């Protein structure tokens, strides 16, 4: 099995995306769609050239937020899952709050987060973590409880400590689950950073996005979205590659 586990053939994917863009271009031209309804890819590309520096500047900010937020969210998710799968009481107590954390609309509490935590990096990271941690934590928690009970017993016979059972059995068994969670989180991470900019920011792709949107620069807005998408896909691919490294034994049986 040489193929990417679940992404499919990257060649075909690329072709599909290119075809999609070409159809989009033809469609907007043939139907003479106004730019403020749906800008043509060429107009968006043009925006990349004219606003290149600016987009680069904002991208750097958002990427920093994304990377920091993703790492923090990951660490938090792992800690949480460890605690939840180790201590039933902790799980009982924390589970509802984990869900609650996802049901509060970030857009609405963004100003409150700012009020509580001030303006700056901290509220942003909080938002990023809120977005990122959940799919990872949930999948990892599920994964950590779907191991082979017989193997656990065997390890217990070997006098393995809880930590050893965890490291040698539960973690390897949870890997597929864990990476599913990571991939979902990867798809959301950049969006999370964008949302985090709602807590009050001076720069970032989210700022660029709203400014171009509210001043009716639809092509610039799409250029911004394109960058968000590209970053998200890159992050997703990165995770998929790491997954491939880790789950090679899955090749057979």
């Amino acid at each position, binding site marked *: 099995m040489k193929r990417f586990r679940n992404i499919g053939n990257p060649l075909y994917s690329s072709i599909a995306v290119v075809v999609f863009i070409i159809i989009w271009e033809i469609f907007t031209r043939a139907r003479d769609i106004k730019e*403020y309804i749906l800008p043509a890819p060429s107009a968006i590309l043009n925006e990349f050239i004219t606003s290149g520096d600016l987009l680069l*500047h904002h991208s750097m900010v958002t990427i920093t937020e994304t990377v920091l937020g993703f790492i923090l969210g990951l660490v938090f998710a792992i800690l949480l899952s460890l605690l939840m799968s180790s201590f039933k009481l902790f799980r009982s107590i924390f589970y509802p709050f984990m869900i609650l954390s996802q049901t509060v609309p970030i*857009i609405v509490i963004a100003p409150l987060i700012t009020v509580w935590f001030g303006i700056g990096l901290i509220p942003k990271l909080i938002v990023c973590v809120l977005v990122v941690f959940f799919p990872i934590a949930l999948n990892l928690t599920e994964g950590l409880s779907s191991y082979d009970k017989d193997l656990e017993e065997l390890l217990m016979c070997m006098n393995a400590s809880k930590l050893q059972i965890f490291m040698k059995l539960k973690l390897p068994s949870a890997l597929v689950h864990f990476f599913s969670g990571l991939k979902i989180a990867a798809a959301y991470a950049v969006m999370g950073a964008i949302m985090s900019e709602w807590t*009050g920011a*001076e720069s970032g792709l989210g700022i*660029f996005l709203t400014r171009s949107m*509210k*001043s009716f620069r639809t092509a610039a807005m799409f250029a911004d979205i394109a960058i968000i998408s590209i970053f998200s896909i890159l992050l997703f691919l990165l995770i998929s590659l790491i997954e491939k490294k880790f789950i090679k034994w899955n090749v057979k049986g």
Partner: protein
Amino acid sequence: GIENTPSPSPDGTSSGAGKQKINFVLDWVPNTNHTGIYVAKIKGYFSEEGLDVDIIQPGESSADQLVASNTAQFGISYQEGVTFARSSGAPLVSLAAVIQHNTSGFGSFKDKGIVSPMDFEGKKYGGWGSEVEAAMVKQVVRDAGGDPDKVQILTTGTADFLQASETGQIDFAWIFEGWDYINATNKGVELNYIDLGKLSDVFDYYTPVIVTNEDNINNNPELVQKFMRAAEKGYRFAIENPDEAAECLLQLAPELDRELVIKSQQFLASKYQDDAPYWGMQKKEVWERYMNWLYENKFIDAPIDVEKAFTNDFLQTAK
């Protein structure tokens, strides 16, 4: 970086060290309503006052809480927002009316032939879904002698006026003359526009306004003084040099549409002060009229003390 670099100060005063850090929170994305603040930052007026002002763009929601809680010392709001805030106990105070008269109104594509509120009958109005908004639309129709129930009020959520009109989903919407109207003209779309402020005194309220909280006014008036001195200077500059002022805004918010900002700035230059004796002045009647309308329509539970909602004390202090 662009925003993170210290503001260049032509007069040589460098910002940063030793200056008091101030957060100023906007109500929306940066736009020509905010030009004075940007001018004050770029031209070093804030620095001269010993202030280091960060201009923060909020998310999609209002940022009034940030000012009420002093997370940001100053910010932009609007009369309705301050009224609501005060009615629920948030100690916001308006320091200046950025624009003397309401420059918003009802816009529609020319071919719809909507030239007076009477023409609203049988037409589709697209708004974001506020009850106050709906009540106001109905009020102007009623005032003009029409039947408010014949207006079809749709919520188009966050959809933009031009987009929604182009695809025929709405006939008219509430727009800002200095922003949406100019944008439409830029894009070669011809509009009819009915100025809300001219329809009724009640609706000629202040939007936007510069706000702070009571705590600053009572315990830190010097700060308010310093801030407003610089802000006022900024807006005066914008009144006199719209093109250069637009450049100041564009320097710190280069993501905006350049043509739109410049034209909007030219339009607003005469609107900031308009017929008032000095820039920023607020009248009690304006506050009272709109507050009473809100109260009569049960949008606030009790009348608020408008005297406490605004102050002119920090204006014209440069003189």
